[in-house]
């Protein structure tokens, strides 16, 4: 029976070729556009640190006064002042904790063939490496003692290591950053979490990877420039060590919800304690964000991309309405033929099945086209100069999702017209013939 219905469908397609092509094209375009954007958003909302992200938190305390102009943005500011970050670091109430700031430094290779160049990295504290589980190719991170003694040590990422030392072992060798020699004590195995979740989340969250990590205290002593945002309030100059300039990121590892609650209480206590010293003019509102919550709060997926997704879905919706309308008109035009079949003994479900198969075939063809168009769309996304561009690849789940969407779309588009058409009254139709 199925083969016969398929044959009937093919006859029907032949009768209105142009229209069939248009319907397939419309559903294909809708699905292609939607799947392109769903895939892009899917890869961008992925977990940058699978297995660890559930234990990582960002403490948010706001020492700055409430600004008069209230921003509509719901994103909180997680940046900390130096005194607050150092207090939390040394209080060590979490399982692990690290303070950090982004930096860009001139790297001055020893070999004469390479000109000095700029590289971006992070100034961090000792726990950074074990807390984020950074994979080491060689060596290791540094200790808290190294932090305290402002050690001139550096951990390189694979890219910079290769550029400076080629394939020869680099542990123990020195690299000149700005105007100071650092001893290489560790090399990371091309660690590039996407997004760079631990940094300030901005348009560079995807794509940019840090190539060096050195102790925060050392960078502060050497007065290395920070590459991120620093905001100051009140008067007394824009000093990095002051208690009225926020510029540091802070992360903690807490391996149970109970510990997370206790840590939040600790933050609240600190906030109230500071208020007795005349700081923290805002009402106490200490917050603790889990990694994934943090990324969504900081809008790691740009608003424009979400808008593009809605646009694509809207387009798919219009295409679907279009196809439902066209199929309905097409099926109803065949009322006569359907009536004859019904009069000859075909049950309603037979007619429904026949028309459903015809609609489903269009859906499937549209889905196949949509898959091709989605690949094309993703390719075009990869050509964008944005950092997230290289992530735009379709994975298995998205591939299955596309087919599922195509079948759902096809069936949805077919159900109403098929149901409507199998309900025509045979007698009435036959009479008008």
């Amino acid at each position, binding site marked *: 029976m199925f083969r016969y219905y398929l044959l009937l469908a093919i006859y029907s397609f032949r009768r209105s070729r142009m229209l069939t092509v248009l319907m397939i094209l*419309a559903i294909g*375009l809708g699905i292609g556009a939607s799947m392109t954007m769903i895939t892009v958003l899917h890869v961008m909302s992925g977990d940058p640190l699978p297995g660890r992200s559930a234990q990582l938190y960002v403490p948010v305390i706001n020492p700055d006064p409430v600004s*008069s102009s209230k921003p509509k943005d719901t994103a909180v500011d997680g940046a900390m002042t130096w005194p607050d970050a150092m207090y939390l670091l040394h209080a060590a109430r979490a399982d692990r904790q690290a303070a950090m700031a982004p930096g860009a430094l001139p790297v001055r290779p020893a070999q004469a063939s390479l000109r000095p160049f700029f590289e971006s990295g992070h100034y961090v504290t000792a726990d950074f490496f074990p807390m984020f589980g950074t994979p080491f190719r060689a060596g290791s991170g540094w200790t808290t003692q190294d932090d305290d003694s402002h050690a001139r040590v550096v951990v390189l990422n694979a890219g910079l290591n290769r550029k400076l030392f080629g394939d020869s072992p680099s542990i123990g060798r020195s690299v000149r950053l700005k105007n100071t020699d650092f001893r290489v004590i560790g090399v990371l195995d091309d660690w590039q979490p996407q997004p760079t979740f631990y940094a300030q989340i901005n348009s560079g969250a995807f794509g940019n990877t840090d190539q060096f990590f050195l102790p925060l205290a050392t960078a502060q002593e050497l007065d290395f420039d920070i590459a991120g945002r620093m905001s100051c309030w009140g008067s007394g100059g824009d000093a990095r060590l002051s208690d009225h300039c926020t510029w540091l990121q802070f992360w903690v590892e807490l391996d149970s919800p109970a510990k997370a609650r206790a840590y939040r209480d600790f933050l609240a206590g600190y906030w109230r304690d500071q208020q007795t010293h005349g700081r923290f003019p805002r009402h106490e509102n200490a917050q603790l964000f889990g990694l994934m919550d943090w990324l969504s709060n900081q809008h790691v997926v740009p608003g424009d991309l979400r808008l593009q997704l809605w646009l694509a879905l*809207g387009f798919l919706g*219009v295409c679907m309405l279009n196809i439902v309308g*066209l199929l309905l008109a097409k099926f*109803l035009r065949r009322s006569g033929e359907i009536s004859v079949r019904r009069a000859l003994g075909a049950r309603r479900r037979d007619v429904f099945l026949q028309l459903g198969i015809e609609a489903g075939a269009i859906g499937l063809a549209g889905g196949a086209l949509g898959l091709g168009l989605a690949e094309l769309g993703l390719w075009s996304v990869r050509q964008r100069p944005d950092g997230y561009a290289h992530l735009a690849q379709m994975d298995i789940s998205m591939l299955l999702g596309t087919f599922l969407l195509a079948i759902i779309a096809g069936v949805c588009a077919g159900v109403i017209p098929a149901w409507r058409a199998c309900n025509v009254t045979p007698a009435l139709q036959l009479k008008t*013939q």
Partner: protein
Amino acid sequence: MPLPPLVASLTRHKLTALLLVLQVSLTCAIVCNVAFMIVERVQLLRQPSGVAENELVSIDSTDLDDNAQPLVRHDTDLAALRAIAGVKSAAAVDALPFNHHDWTNGIALVQDGPTRATATAFNGTPDELATLGLHLVEGRSFLPNEYVPLGSSHDWSGIDQVPVTIVTRALAEKLFPGQDPLGKAIYPDEKPVRIVGVINHLLRPQAHESADNDYATVFPMLPDANSVTYVLRTAPQDRSRVLKQATEALDRVHGNRILRHAQTFEQLRADFFHRNRTMIALLIAAAMGLLIVTALGIAGLASFWVQQRRRSIGIRRAVGATRRDILRYFQWENFLIVGTGVALGAVLAYGLNMLLMQQYEQPRLPMLYPAIGAFALWLLGQLAVLGPALRAASVPPVVATRTT
């Protein structure tokens, strides 16, 4: 054209007509909002930066000497840059529109007073105004004795020593609405700074909320960090040559440095807006796609209906209807459906706009957009139905006498 028979005929195709109405209204709603977004983004793209855009090239230089003397270095470099043929003027600056180096200060009108506005500080050597081509609309330029070092390595302490500033007209109007800003004091930090001039425009290095984009203060402060941006003004056709020669000249004067971002101002601007341009292209593509799909839908449905009604068209023709009557019939039918669609679409457009206002801080949709959208869709509908309607009109009366 009598409407009742037309409406009666449509009620025989309730579901189909309803689907078409829905499709038209959804298309209308989306296209109106998309068009509004396109216009907004194009306006963003076109904001005047205030500088002589097609005459500027810039290059970032970082001195790597251990005991570098930035002020001396900048003077020597600038002398070498000015010697290049075709360079009209040159300056060392710390910020340019679109270059992301944004040092923003909260501006108060009394000491330790509340912040009235936040504005970007632009600092540079004495030729900055002339090089950038900033247009002074009121007051005067800086005097040679007003320049102080920026104090980059001392927490930018220059801000408490600088005596005067030139502000943009937008900032002056925000701080002193309806008053003459010249001679007034502002407090970007602790000390008062007197306004001596007003410039037309100067866009900030990073995007801010639309009204604040033009809040800028120019200070007579000399950049004294090891990293600095050199801006050169030259004739548009000389830009690439000057850029190349500038790189060579700087290398010759002092080799131990890193030169980055050697580019024309137009490249800087293009890079700044690349996302915006992608978005505009996508929005246009989406709007076109929607309109085409809807037009094809209308045409497809109309041709079905024409085929289905061949016999009744034949009968009408046989009892005296002219070709023109048949044509009109289909045109009116389309007008009715699309008209209902766009009426619903206008309501939907405002609903969608409300959602966007909440989610994306989109302003309210002006009435003009639904009006134009409705007209465009109506026109599109008429164009789409024309082919099938003409085919209907050409159905000969003899069809009425045939059995099928």
